[in-house]
Structures are given as structure tokens and as C-alpha cells.
């Protein structure tokens, strides 16, 4: 018995040692935009939209797993590989689009943050300054470990959605059945678009860049691949575990009473009459947390990507002196994001729209690179994609690309 226990204890410890990157990336895919989309979908379609969660979980896990496997097998980030394999011209294009899309997403998250703070009647300007300053300080001064701890703390804060939902009168039986019962799927335009929008906000170009860079920055080695893969699935499931509650909370309240949401930010306020003060408050806290997580992780993504593309030191463990460029780019994005949202004459709505377009354009190329790299024997060695995995990932990729294009078209024509 003791032997049995020690065997598993060792494995558990190993798992905890690699734990972090996949979970943090997956969770941050539920940034403010993600949360808003889930709330909207829940309010509009009720429990039936839960059916989309299983495929989203699977797709997220598959794509993240490819990123992690490349990172561990090659020791290189997506930026490194694109630059080394495709040269300067492609690099410049990919990086430019990624940077614009990322800054757009950061702006969207700042806008969400502003909306949430307004909801709580909190002063915007001083809080923005405090947040930007605090974030810059802890990212540039702290090392990888301290940063990861704070990110994991943020992951825990997502439980506010769970608690919030438990305060609501939920038809749990229907919720669980909806997840697996294809009969709930509605074959109308709105439902399909909502499903696709969820996919589009969950699987993003920056998510793919981030997971790879972040694994490398943790200095994990290939012998831990199995544990990292387990973590990838764990992270995807956890992310969509939270998504489940976001949807259920609005489905059990707003959908049940036939109240339509104008935008996702209002969800916290809108559920108050049905769920009570406490649930509404927790929902708001969760939303602020999601926005902050998005702001930090996406800014980090651009900084990591720039360092990889152009070969500078890019690590949370780098002292400020050595990582000047890395931290500089990180800071610059925060300042731009905060400034744009504070300026009254810039339309955040349009920026968010263009951001989505850029993300949608970039995503097919990112998956092209991912599939190219994971099928390259020279790069991956024994960890190359197997035939079945390939078929599955190609199908997933096509689904994701179609989804991205759908989101794009729907926003262009205002469907």
C-alpha cells in the first residue's frame, strides 16, 4: 500500500512541477471577450448552447497540445520557428498582424474592465493607473515563479462564477443533458453563429503563441511531455468547466425570464434581480479578473513573440536590464490599451471589430504553421504527429478556420 502511494505521490509531484502553462493559457482564453460571449450566448439560447462546450474543449486541448509538443520537442517558440523556417518577410507580416490583433484585444479587455468598474461605481482613471503600474511592476520585477503564482491565483478567482451560479435556481438535470444530447442543437443561423463565436474567442492566434513561449520560459524538458499533455487536457476541461457556469448562470436567469442582453458586460448587472446581490457581485468580480488576465497574458504574448522573432532575451526570469526590449514592449501595449479606452473620441467598438478580423485572418496561417511543424520529422523527431492525430487535427483546424471566417463574415455583414 505504501509502495502504491509513493508511486503515485512521485507522479503527482512531477505533474505539479510541470503544472502551469497549459492551464494558464487555456483559462486566459476566457478573457473578457470570452466571458462576454458566453454570457450573451447563455442569455440568448439558454441551456441548449451548452452542447457546444464539449467540442470546444476538445479542439482547445488538441491545438494547445500541438503547441506544447512543439515547444518541448524543439525548445523553440512559434516565433522562433516561423523566423527560422520562413525567413524575414513572412516574419514581418505575421508579427505585424499579430501585434495589431493583440493590441486590439488588449483594448477590448481594457474596455471591458472600464465597463465593469463603471458598474461598481469605481473611479476609472486612478484605478487604471494603479492597475497598469502594478502589472508592470510585478511582471518586470517578479520572476517566472512569482508570476505564475499570481496567474494561478487568478485562475482560482474564476471560481467566483461557480459560486455565483450556485446562488441561482438552476435546472441541473437539463444543463447536464444539454451538454451531450444533440437533440438540443438548433439549426438556425443565430445558434450556429453563437457556437462559432464561442470557438473564435476561445481558440486564438495569441493563445497558440503564448502557450509555446510560456512552456519554454518555464524551462520544461521533453521527458515531461506526458505530464504536460495531461495538463493540457486538464486545462481545457477546467476552462470549459468555468464556461459551463457562465452559460448556466445567464441561462437560468436571463434566458428563463426572456430578457435579452445588449452586451456581455451587462450580464453581472442583469442577473441581479434573479440571482441576488451576492451573485451579481461575484459575476462582476469574475469579469474584472478575466479582463485583467487577458490584458496581462496578451501583452506578454506580443513581448514573447517579438523576442522570438528578432532574437532578443525574452523571459520573465530575465533581469530588467537584460530584458529591456521584452519588458518595454509589454509596457507599451498596456499604455496604449489604457490610453485608447480612456480617450473619449476613439470608438472601441470599431477597434474590437477590426481585431476580430485580424485574428480571423491570422488563425488559418498559424494552424498551417502548427501542422507543418508537427509533421516535420527533422524538428519533432519521435514526437511527430501520428496519422490519426493528423487527421483529427486537420479536421479540427478546418473547423476552427471556418469558424474564424464565419465570425469575420458575420461581423462584416452585421448578421
Amino acid at each position, binding site marked *: 500500500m505504501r509502495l502504491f502511494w509513493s508511486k503515485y505521490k512521485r507522479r503527482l509531484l512531477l505533474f505539479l512541477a510541470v503544472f502551469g502553462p497549459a492551464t494558464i493559457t487555456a483559462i486566459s482564453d476566457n478573457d473578457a471577450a470570452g466571458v462576454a460571449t458566453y454570457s450573451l450566448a447563455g442569455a440568448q439560447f439558454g441551456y441548449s448552447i451548452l452542447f457546444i462546450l464539449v467540442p470546444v474543449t476538445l479542439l482547445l486541448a488538441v491545438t494547445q497540445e500541438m503547441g506544447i509538443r512543439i515547444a518541448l520537442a524543439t525548445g523553440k517558440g512559434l516565433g522562433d520557428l516561423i523566423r527560422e523556417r520562413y525567413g524575414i*518577410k513572412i516574419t514581418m507580416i505575421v508579427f505585424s498582424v499579430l501585434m495589431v490583433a493583440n493590441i486590439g484585444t488588449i483594448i477590448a479587455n481594457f474596455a471591458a474592465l472600464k465597463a465593469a468598474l463603471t458598474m461598481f461605481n469605481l473611479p476609472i482613471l486612478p484605478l487604471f493607473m494603479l492597475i497598469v503600474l502594478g502589472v508592470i511592476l510585478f511582471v518586470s520585477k517578479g520572476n517566472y515563479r512569482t508570476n505564475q503564482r499570481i496567474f494561478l491565483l487568478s485562475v482560482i478567482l474564476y471560481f467566483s462564477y461557480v459560486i455565483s451560479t450556485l446562488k441561482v435556481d438552476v435546472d441541473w438535470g437539463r444543463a447536464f443533458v444539454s451538454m451531450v444530447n444533440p437533440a438540443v442543437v438548433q439549426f438556425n443561423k443565430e445558434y450556429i453563429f453563437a457556437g462559432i463565436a464561442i470557438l473564435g474567442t476561445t481558440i486564438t492566434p495569441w493563445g497558440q503563441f503564448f502557450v509555446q513561449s510560456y512552456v519554454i520560459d518555464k524551462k520544461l524538458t521533453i521527458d515531461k511531455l506526458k505530464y504536460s499533455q495531461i495538463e493540457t487536457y486538464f486545462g481545457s476541461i477546467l476552462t470549459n468547466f468555468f464556461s459551463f457556469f457562465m452559460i448556466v448562470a445567464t441561462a437560468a436567469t436571463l434566458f428563463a425570464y426572456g430578457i435579452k442582453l445588449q452586451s456581455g458586460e451587462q450580464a453581472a448587472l442583469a442577473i441581479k434581480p434573479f440571482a441576488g446581490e451576492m451573485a451579481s457581485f461575484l459575476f462582476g468580480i469574475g469579469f474584472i479578473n478575466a479582463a485583467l488576465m487577458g490584458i496581462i497574458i496578451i501583452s506578454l504574448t506580443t513581448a514573447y513573440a517579438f523576442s522570438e522573432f528578432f532574437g532578443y532575451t*525574452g523571459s520573465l526570469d530575465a533581469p530588467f536590464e*537584460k530584458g529591456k526590449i521584452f519588458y518595454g514592449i509589454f509596457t507599451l501595449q498596456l499604455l496604449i490599451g489604457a490610453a485608447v479606452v480612456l480617450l473619449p473620441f476613439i470608438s472601441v467598438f470599431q477597434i474590437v471589430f477590426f481585431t476580430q478580423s485580424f485574428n480571423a485572418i491570422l488563425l488559418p496561417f498559424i494552424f498551417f504553421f502548427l501542422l507543418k511543424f508537427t509533421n516535420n520529422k527533422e524538428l519533432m523527431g519521435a514526437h511527430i504527429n501520428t496519422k490519426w492525430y493528423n487527421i483529427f487535427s486537420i479536421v479540427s483546424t478546418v473547423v476552427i478556420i471556418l469558424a474564424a471566417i464565419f465570425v469575420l463574415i458575420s461581423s462584416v455583414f452585421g448578421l
Partner: protein
Amino acid sequence: MIYFSELKGKDVSTEDNVKVGKLDDLIFLASENPRITKLVVEDLSGNKINISIDHVKKINSNVLINKNYSISELEENELFLLKNIQDKQIIDLKGNKVVRVNDVVLQDKNGLYVSGVDISLLGIFRWLKLEKYFHKLANFVNYRPISQFLSWADIQPLELARGQVRLKKEEQKLEKLRPEDLADYLEKTNVVNTRKILKILDKKFAADVIRSLNINYQTSLFKYFTPEIAAKFISLIDPDEAVDIILTQSPKKREQIIRLLGESKKTEINHLLKLSNTPIGELITTEYLTVSPEETVKSVITKVRRDSADFFTLLNIYVVNKDNQLIGVFNIHELLLQDDNTQVYKFMIQNVIVVHLTTPVEIVIRKMFKYHLLHLPVIDISKKIQGIITMVDVDKFVVEKL
């Protein structure tokens, strides 16, 4: 000097104007002297063929090759510019990422060879064919972009080395460096560390590294060595340099070391030691010019006119980095052969023959004759230039000998 970005994609045709294809890559010999050996040409049907550089008639706006060229195979120690250097990560000895290779610089002097890599923003714009516009834009905001150049001697392209035993890799990684560069690096660590590293190196290579260390460092290093080891290294080092080192040791240790040397080495060193009573401190002059590697020929010439008017003579111009350390040299003739806008680093000689303040006059003279140099720069322990010593300054010693 040619940039790889300017060559890639150029049309390749034979002398009688039959198009062969486009230049895709260059193959070079991965060695101290990285000569370009073959061109990789993508022919009209999209196949990649290797053509030996011997068939090349001309390389500039287009590439012309012999009519009856033949296709050759990749040989041992040959690497590709595009695949193995271009865009690769440059890391320093401690493993820190520095920058990526933005462009490769080729030198066309007695055959084409790799002289180094461009790590500046200009390298990126050159690939994008936007260099001109970048210059214009930069001019507009009064900023003068300059190429940053890493010489071949300074770099060790990071290679994909997987599945190797780690300890051995460390050793190999060290040996691929030039001894001078390793010495530079070792001077920044402590003596204990240095001894550890020297121990795993090949003896001859280690001797070269020791030779390149500064005199203070050599002194403390030899204090740690047993006479046996010291003698072994001394016998591997050029006698001129060896004497410099032996002189730093106590007379007792000196004797112990010399006793252990081979017969002919012993006589040679003893002879040199006898001569070494005259330090050169009083003989050096300060009539020399230094410039930075980024300066253009034009600005150097202006400097010569302005600053050297009252010099006795000026033969060489020395190149120093930001820390005032000597990194290159060129003579007036080499200067005049260049275009006005060429930057100094593109043609300077990096392997500078130097003497130290502690070097005896006899050894200075030997060096002057050995390398046919009339002027030698004198540097201190941190490689900063202190002055120069000229044949005129030492001629009375030469006459004495005669």
C-alpha cells in the same frame, strides 16, 4: 563587400546568356576561413542544384557561370548560408539570447568568403527591399542608421544539436571558439573557473587561450600551475610571448619551469630572457589616430587631415570600440582604396599584432621584423590602446645589434 540579401534570388546564367535559374543559397566551408565553395541554384524546373564557385565568372547584378558547368555534391564540413546561418539565433557563451542574424556579409577578396553577419535593423529592411525608404525616413527625422556587424571571428552560429552527451558538447562548444574570444570571456570569470575550463581543452588550444589572456591573468594563473604544467604550456607558446609570461613569475619558479623545458626551447628562452631588461614604456609615442568601426571612409579622411597635421608620420589607423579597446587596424593605402561611404568595419583587419607595456624592446623588434610592421600598437591589460611604438623609436637598439 556584398550582402547575402542582395544576392539571393539573382538570375544565374551562362556566359552565352542561357538562363540556368535563380540563386537560392550559398554553400560555405564551416571553418576558421569560411570560404564560399558552391552556389545553390534553383533551376528552371524548380530543382536545386549545386554549382562549384570555380565555375562562376562574375557575381554582381547577375551571376554568370561557365558554359560547361557541372553539378557537384555537398562535401564534408560544408554548410548552407540560408539554412544554417541566416535568421538563426545568436547566443553568447553564457547562453543568453543576443539577437538574430538579419543578413550575412560576404567579402570578395581573393575569393568569396563569409566575413560576418549584420545584426542591425538595416539587415531586415534590406530583405524587405525597403532599405532606401528606411534611410529616407531616417534622414527625415535626423537619425543616421548604421549597420551593426558581427565578424565571423566573433560568432558561433547556434546549431541544432540534439541527442548529444551534454558534457562533451560543452567542450566542443568551447573549442569552436577562437582562443582570443575564449580568453576574453575567461578574463571575466575567476581563476579557479578558468583552470577548470583549460583542463578540458586540448593542450595546444589551451596554450593559445593562455597566450591571449592579459598579463595579470597569466601571472595569477601560472602561480597556480605546478612547474610541470607551466613548462608544458610554455613549450607550446611562441617564445616571444612565453618570455613575457615567465618574467611575471618569481625567480625561483622561473628556474623550475625553465629546467623542465626541452633543450632547444630552453636555449631560446634563456637567450630572450637575457635581452629583456629594457621595458618599452619610455619609447612609445602618442602620435596615432583611432576611429570607431562604424565611421565612414570619408569621415576618417577628414579626421586624418584635421588631427594628424603635425604628426611625424601616419601609417596605420586603429579601430577601437565604445570601451576604447583595440579591435582592428588598417593602413592609409587600404583606406584610400575604399569608397567614400564604406564603413570602417567592412575592410579593417581584425587580427591586430600588438605589444604590451611590459614587453621587452627586443621582442618588439622581433615582432616588427616577423610581421613586417613598422608601427605596433601598445595595449594595456584591458586591451585599451596606450600608444604606438615605431621602428624609429627602437632603431638605436637595432643598430646596436648590428
